[in-house]
């Protein structure tokens, strides 16, 4: 099964749409690229405590346990991000929060209008000669 790419039909009902709400204001973006990234923050080396001890036998796995505290969700701490490129002149300010919703061919891929939650980790807007105005946003998604 094939899908229209974000670039082809970014705002049509049949293509891929990214709708994000920033501090209560909702907008649908003409996206050219979307990357969903999931990294388990619990797998990071500094998220675990080494509790291996001298009583463990040779060849046994090193005992570890999760650190009691979890990393903060901001700035990528949740390990889940959406990176998207878009065409348009919307400026996305960092630190804004809201909901996100990605649809493919009219069906929800991730997110929603009520329970999903994100924080803008970073954004750029590029205005260049002989090109469309292009931007990029990175959203940190809460777990």
């Amino acid at each position, binding site marked *: 099964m094939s899908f229209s790419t974000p670039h082809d039909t970014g705002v049509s009902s049949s293509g891929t749409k990214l709708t994000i709400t920033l501090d209560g204001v909702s907008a649908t973006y003409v996206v050219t690229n979307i990357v969903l990234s999931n990294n388990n923050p619990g797998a990071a080396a500094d998220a675990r*405590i080494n*509790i291996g*001890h*001298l*009583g463990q036998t*040779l060849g*046994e796995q090193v005992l570890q346990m999760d*650190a*009691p505290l979890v990393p903060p969700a901001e700035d990528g701490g949740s390990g889940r991000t959406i990176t998207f490129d878009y065409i348009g002149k919307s400026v996305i300010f960092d630190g804004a929060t809201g909901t996100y919703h990605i649809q493919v061919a009219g069906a929800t891929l991730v997110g929603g209008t009520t329970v999903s939650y994100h924080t803008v980790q970073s954004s750029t807007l590029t205005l260049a000669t002989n090109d469309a105005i292009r931007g990029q946003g990175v959203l940190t998604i809460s777990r």
Partner: protein
Amino acid sequence: MPIPCQGFTFTWGGATLSEVQELEVNLQRDLPLGRSTTWTPNLGEVRLLSLSIASLPTSEYGRRKQLTIQAPAATIRRYPPLNGATAVNTPAATLCDVDCIYRGVTINATANGVVRFAHTFKVMDTVGAPTNP
């Protein structure tokens, strides 16, 4: 022959001490005191850093018991091979077998970590060796 730092057994008066992460045995004997040519109040100290206080409750403070620490025999790999073989057998070893007084514990807790206990034992007599006169 190196002794791998794993599989150690720790017993205190016959009770097992568990989850010991670090071991420091200091059996350095002080010079004799007074008119004696052999007697000394300081035969050494043993320090265990552990994740547990099981078998070492506060009621053990000041008790004198036998502390035994043993490393098992093991087969380890060494590189490059020795006489064509990478498997090397290491012998069992008794690292410590002494009569001690349990001096106490220092508890260290850090945020987002685990509690660690530093147990200290004062060596009173070396088991199997001539008694400290």
